[in-house]
């Protein structure tokens, strides 16, 4: 099935520059509808107020981390189906294990480039 570039994407990061970077890369790839949140709490509010088709989230944020956001999304019957990709500097084995067990769809380590983003999103959404 062809990827829908009009899908609604939520990107979550507490660094404004990272939000700009991911937004810019997604638009380079052809995605059009991108919302932002600066931490897990704000992201959860947005997810519960609007339909999203994909979440890309950092890990290290306060008051709610991306890992906690992932667990909350997977625990919510209305949200658990949403593909969730972590984009993070956390690269230890225990992080990857924890994220996978919590239900993450893919895992991108910072720094990264647009080709890596495309590859990991293709693995989740289908080739584009």
């Amino acid at each position, binding site marked *: 099935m062809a990827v829908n570039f009009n899908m609604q994407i939520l990107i979550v*990061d507490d*660094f*404004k*520059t*990272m939000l*700009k*970077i991911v937004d*810019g*890369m997604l*638009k*380079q790839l052809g995605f059009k509808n991108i919302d932002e949140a600066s931490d897990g709490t704000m992201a959860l509010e947005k997810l519960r107020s609007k339909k999203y088709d994909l979440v890309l989230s950092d*890990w*290290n944020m306060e008051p709610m*981390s991306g*890992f*906690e956001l992932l667990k909350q999304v997977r625990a919510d019957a209305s949200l658990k189906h949403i593909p969730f990709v972590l984009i993070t*500097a*956390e*690269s*230890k*084995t*225990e*992080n*990857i*294990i*924890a994220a*996978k067990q919590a239900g993450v769809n*893919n*895992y*991108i*380590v*910072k*720094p*990264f*480039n*647009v*080709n*890596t983003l495309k590859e990991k999103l293709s693995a989740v959404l289908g080739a584009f």
Partner: protein
Amino acid sequence: MPEAKKAADDLRGLYAKIEEILKQFREIREEAEGIVENSQMPDAALHLNDVLQHTEEATTTILDAATTIGSLTDNAAVAEQIGRIYEACTFQDISGQRIKKVLKHLNTLEEQLQGLSEAARGATGDAAAKPRAKAAPAATGDAALMNGPALSTEAPSQADVDAMFKNM
């Protein structure tokens, strides 16, 4: 009575040792206070915060300019160069996280020195004794997973992460 004299001598010796220990506590306290008062730590923290703020501003400017350039043309070669700008700018996120980690360590060190100074003051009786600051407990649970970026020489590549992810 020899036993009484020995007991008195022992007590005098013990008293002298306690005096010596108290003197050392005073010296430790003065040194800790000196470090806290004269240290460059608050200054270092301000400089680091400055670096954080200014690199964020500079990176934002670069990204806004790159996005504007991208919107002005469909040229694939230009798009590729803009992609390289985005990738290079992810450094700011990594640097920012490292700086925040250092600032946290500086704050902890300053608190511990303050605690040491106050505990030593209490032990010498120079002021009302204050409870010794407890060492911060090691992080547990989800908090133990928040370590920030690894050192460049130790960080696994995306390929390493993919392999770990695939094999779970």
